[in-house]
């Protein structure tokens, strides 16, 4: 008998006296094995994957709602809720047929009218969806299982748009829910996926619970990312939010949780030493660090100033600041697209390679007309990745002889202030840092940060005709070779004009207890195929 047992006994006796009853029985081992306790990357603060596009919402939504197509580990769209599809020779009409037997969590069948409403709501918020809407003639239900999307011109990336894992995904909801204004939050969470959302147990900021949906009909194929048979091997998945990484690490070691999505690099050595814990790269698509400059105001409205920064920027400094000395976790990235994916290119990336040339950078900066005016650098201190990048940037700019106005603030403030188009001295800014999930940087389709269409571009509002031309070329490409060629040219144009400064490619770990099996690498945590022994 250990001390904990004695304490339990004493407290149990006290509790009996105080509460007048027996304490709750311990959970049976079998039940514990059917419950997977997971620490997500962030708090699930809302649960509308169209209204709120945070990754954590997308990840939870993938459990509850199914999609027509799913992207697999080879980055190919595969049928999911769809049984078959046809396209006319001119590529303008797509006809889809749903699999039989699909049901929502309220027991109602999934019908074409539900799909039409869901796609309409999704398309209003998704960059690819908006492109489809722009050329849409009609989207209609033909019968209960068939629907048709008629376009004014071909859209070769249709299946990719419906399968992609970038938020927002085209999740299928019942028509009455999907008719909600896409800029307003849904209030019912009736899903079409393998798990039901237990709203009564939802404590935002603390806990979210998902329960197995008995009537879900998985595909027969082997699961691969968002495609294939989503077989649930546990009955219940509990998401337990832990804001403090040290607490999450301790809880995992103590067996109080089973799987921690994203342990911070500092704590990984401790976890690796624990014989009960497995640690591996979570998402092989990783992340791309970003140093974003404001193209509207001096000094970065001059491409020479932006290129001067790029010439002096050491990606190794940034990566070591973010992930530490574990060289397996990062690599230099002389480009904008995710390494080891089909469209990856280093065309035009020479400026980021080799020894950093501060003398040449200073000379180019002087040629741009920079004369010591303050450069407002927004740095969110509550995000370890942005803080690390901000510190490196401040040092870099000082070495270049720039006058840095370092604004240490929180992410909420950066998120708001970066939208200001006023001059830096009047509430605007010159630069901020961010990072992009590698899964979002595989193609130009969902890569908002690479767009350079001026006023309509992402924060910083870059204008680069060459970049935009190649984005269009990629959308029009009819083969992988054409796509590769377009993205190569795009990479060069975006580096020449410095749409933004990539600070490197980095990976993160995931960790789970060894009694859990089936954890797959991917851009989001996949719970199908994951089992747990007692």
């Amino acid at each position, binding site marked *: 008998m*250990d*001390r*904990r047992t004695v*304490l*339990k006994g004493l*407290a*149990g006796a006290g*509790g*009996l006296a105080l*509460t007048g009853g*027996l*304490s*709750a029985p311990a959970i049976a081992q079998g039940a514990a094995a059917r419950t997977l306790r997971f620490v997500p990357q962030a*708090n699930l*603060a*809302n649960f*509308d994957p169209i*209204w*709120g*596009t945070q990754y954590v919402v997308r990840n939870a939504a993938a459990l509850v709602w199914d999609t027509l197509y799913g992207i697999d580990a080879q980055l190919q769209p595969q049928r999911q809720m769809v049984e078959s599809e046809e396209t006319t020779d001119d590529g303008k009409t797509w006809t889809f047929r749903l699999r039989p037997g699909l049901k929502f969590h309220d027991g109602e069948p999934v019908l074409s009218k539900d799909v039409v409403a869901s796609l309409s709501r999704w398309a209003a*918020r998704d*960059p690819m969806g908006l492109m489809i809407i722009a050329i849409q003639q009609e989207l209609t239900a033909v019968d209960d299982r068939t629907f048709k999307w008629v376009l004014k011109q071909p859209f070769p990336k249709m299946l990719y748009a419906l399968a992609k894992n*970038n*938020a927002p995904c085209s999740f299928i909801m019942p028509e009455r829910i999907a008719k909600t*204004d896409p*800029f307003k939050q849904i*209030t019912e969470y009736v899903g079409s996926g393998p798990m039901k959302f237990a709203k009564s147990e939802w*404590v*935002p*900021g*603390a*806990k979210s619970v998902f329960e197995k949906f008995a009537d879900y009909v998985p595909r027969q194929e082997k699961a691969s990312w968002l495609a294939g048979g989503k077989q649930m091997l546990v009955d219940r998945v509990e998401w*337990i*939010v*832990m*804001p*403090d990484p040290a*607490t*999450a690490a*301790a*809880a995992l*070691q*103590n067996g*109080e949780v089973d799987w921690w999505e994203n342990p911070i690099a500092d704590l990984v050595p401790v976890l690796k030493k624990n014989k009960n814990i497995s640690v591996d790269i979570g998402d092989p698509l990783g992340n791309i660090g970003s140093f974003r400059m404001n193209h509207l105001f001096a000094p970065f409205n001059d491409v020479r100033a932006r290129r001067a920064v790029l010439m002096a920027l050491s990606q190794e400094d940034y990566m070591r600041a973010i992930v530490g000395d574990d060289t397996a976790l990062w690599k230099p990235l002389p480009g904008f697209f995710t390494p080891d994916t089909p469209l990856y290119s280093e065309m035009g990336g020479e400026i980021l390679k080799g020894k950093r040339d501060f003398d040449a950078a200073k000379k180019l900066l002087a040629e741009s007309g920079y004369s010591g005016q303050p450069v407002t650098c927004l740095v969110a201190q509550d995000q370890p990745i942005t803080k690390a990048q901000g510190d490196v940037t401040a040092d870099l700019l000082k070495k270049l002889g720039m006058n840095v106005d370092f604004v240490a*603030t*929180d*992410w*909420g*403030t950066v*998120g*708001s*202030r970066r*939208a200001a188009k006023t001059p830096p001295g009047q509430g605007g800014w010159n630069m901020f840092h961010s990072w*992009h999930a590698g899964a*979002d940087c595989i193609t130009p389709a*969902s890569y*908002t940060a690479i767009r350079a269409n001026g006023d*309509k571009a*992402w*924060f910083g509002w870059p204008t680069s005709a060459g970049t935009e031309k190649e984005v269009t070329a990629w959308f029009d490409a009819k083969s992988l070779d054409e796509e590769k060629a377009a993205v190569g040219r795009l990479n060069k144009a975006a580096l020449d004009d410095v749409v933004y400064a990539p600070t490197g490619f980095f990976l993160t770990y995931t960790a789970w207890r060894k009694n859990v099996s089936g954890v797959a690498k991917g851009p989001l945590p996949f719970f199908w195929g994951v089992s747990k022994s007692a």
Partner: protein
Amino acid sequence: MLSYILRRIVATLPVMAIVALFVFSLLYIAPGDPAVVIAGDQASPEDVERIRQSLGLDRPFLIQFGSWVWRILHGDLGTSIFTNLPVSTMIGQRLGPTLSLMIVTLLLTIVVAVPLGVVAAWKAGSLIDRAIMGFAVFGFSLPVFVVGYMLAYIFALELEWLPVQGYTPLNEGFWPWLENLILPAIALGCVYIALVARITRAAMLEVLQQDYIRTARAKGLGQGGILFIHALKNAAVPIVTVIGIGIALLIGGAVVTESVFAIPGLGRLTIDAILRRDYPVIQGIVLLFSFVYVLVNLMIDVTYTLVDPRIRY
């Protein structure tokens, strides 16, 4: 007494109104935008603007404030911008863990700190006194999160006696409830134990020099009786005051403790709401906290009449 309590409760209303106006104004002028957080990092400025409009955040200050006050007057704290849940529901979900933590911490503080202070005063100048006061300095000096991590490491990871994190409601059993609160309560209680012990010692030292204590000793009363019946009761007013202040301060300490031990209480809700700029939740919590502060002060004043019959309202 009853009319005094009623007067005090009525007097809280203008205080709450001023707090409400202050909080609303502060949030209005503070940087940050919940629409940006909702829209996500890849959202276009147009999407952000449409979300702002749908939330009513683009309306003028006075209209936003007016509609908020109107709702408050109808007992409606509003709806969270993010979760779409009523603020009262969210506060209700989080009240239990925070109240539990505060009650256990308070009991621990009183049970440990008052006897320590009494003993320190009794043995003033001795090694015991110095040891207790040394502990008090230690308790003051260590931040809550440091104590928390140390306790979690020793008692959860190394000894495996207690869990690292979480909260179990009392209706699921007394021990499951208590075992989750022991470490957080010790971590949070350290500074209050130090504070109350020092105040108790100081108050007791003054009382122990009074004539009636000398008389009690001359009558042959035992040391325990003198210390805990005669002296402690007369030293109680400052002790009750500092315990009352401690309750108010516990709310602040709970923010850190709840984060370290992953307790889903009001402290974490506050932090989350501030980081996301969830205005209705922040406003609801601040109103609640200000009410609790006022209530605690009232309770302290009423308690004075119990420990000192000379005080009457």
